[in-house]
């Protein structure tokens, strides 16, 4: 057993003991190493001239600003394409109205100065209202008969 072992303690007939396996199986482009020295000096020069800290700071700032622009642009574009941009503006308008007004003020802002009339008494308070609002009971009955409205619908109106 000991005869079969070499200085590394590995068997002599070991497949990895074929000496040619330790040879380099790779080749190289012609005259490669002749060009390495120049290439390294060019790279050193480039790194030394390109490592200005002020320039590096501005590079970072410009990169961050560009990133923000891209993210904002994508967001705006997506909202524009999906139509959520308009909805959001509308929501913002109503939200701002709600923020500083009561419900009555809100209605006034939306309706303008037109009064909201709910009862017959209120009609009397607004004599300048157009004639279409002063409809009598007979006219309403005649309209309902002409419209062929069913008894059940009329009952539900009661």
């Amino acid at each position, binding site marked *: 057993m000991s005869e079969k072992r070499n200085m590394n303690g*590995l068997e002599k007939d*070991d*497949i*990895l003991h*074929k000496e*040619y*396996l*330790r040879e*380099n*199986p*790779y*080749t*190289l*482009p012609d005259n*490669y*190493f002749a060009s*390495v*020295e120049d*290439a*390294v000096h060019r*790279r*050193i020069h480039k*790194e030394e001239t390109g490592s200005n800290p002020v320039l590096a700071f501005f590079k970072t700032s410009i990169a961050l600003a560009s990133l923000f622009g891209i993210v904002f642009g994508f967001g705006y574009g997506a909202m524009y394409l999906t139509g959520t941009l308009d909805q959001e503006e509308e929501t913002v308008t109503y939200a701002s109205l709600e923020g500083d007004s009561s419900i009555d003020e809100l209605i006034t802002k939306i309706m303008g100065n037109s009064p909201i009339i709910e009862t017959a008494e209120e009609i009397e308070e607004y004599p300048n209202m157009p004639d279409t609002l002063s409809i009598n009971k007979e006219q309403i009955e005649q309209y309902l008969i002409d419209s062929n409205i069913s008894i059940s619908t009329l009952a539900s109106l009661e």
Partner: protein
Amino acid sequence: MPEDKDILEIYKQEGKQEYAFNLLVRKYSERLYWHIRKLTCSHDDANDLLQSTLVKIWQNLPTFREESKLYTWIYRIATNETLTFLKRKRLSSFLSLSDYDSVLENKLQSDKYFNGDKLQLALQKAIIKLPDKQRAVFNLRYFQQMKYEDISEIMNTSVGALKASYHHAYHKIKAELENEFE
């Protein structure tokens, strides 16, 4: 070719730094290139990493305190650069749901600068399957026949751990080759 200590003496002389560095480049470029090339399996990657290694050597030479040998210090920079590169590549491969071992194997098979026979190709393929650090240890010991003490300085690992790692790698590769060829 001058000895490392002579190059360092030249480097310490006023205005001779660039000349001393050129001596180092001429002395170590080829050895470092093959070390990196066997780990990356690609000439282009090896070329790029060799250049960045030499740039780092130039940048860090003023702080080299001669606590270790110059050549193990140089190899440590090259090995760290390469292992960091492989780590980054493996991460980007993982994120793109591919296997970097397969990428390396494909590089090896399509490499127009690979000149070996079937057994040499199988050996390289078996080496690729090892973890990167273990590959570096195996290559330094098997191909460059470097002393464990020097590999220990390069890898910053104890000699005992290196011996265990090398023998584990050796038997794994041997089993794979025997399985394929015997």
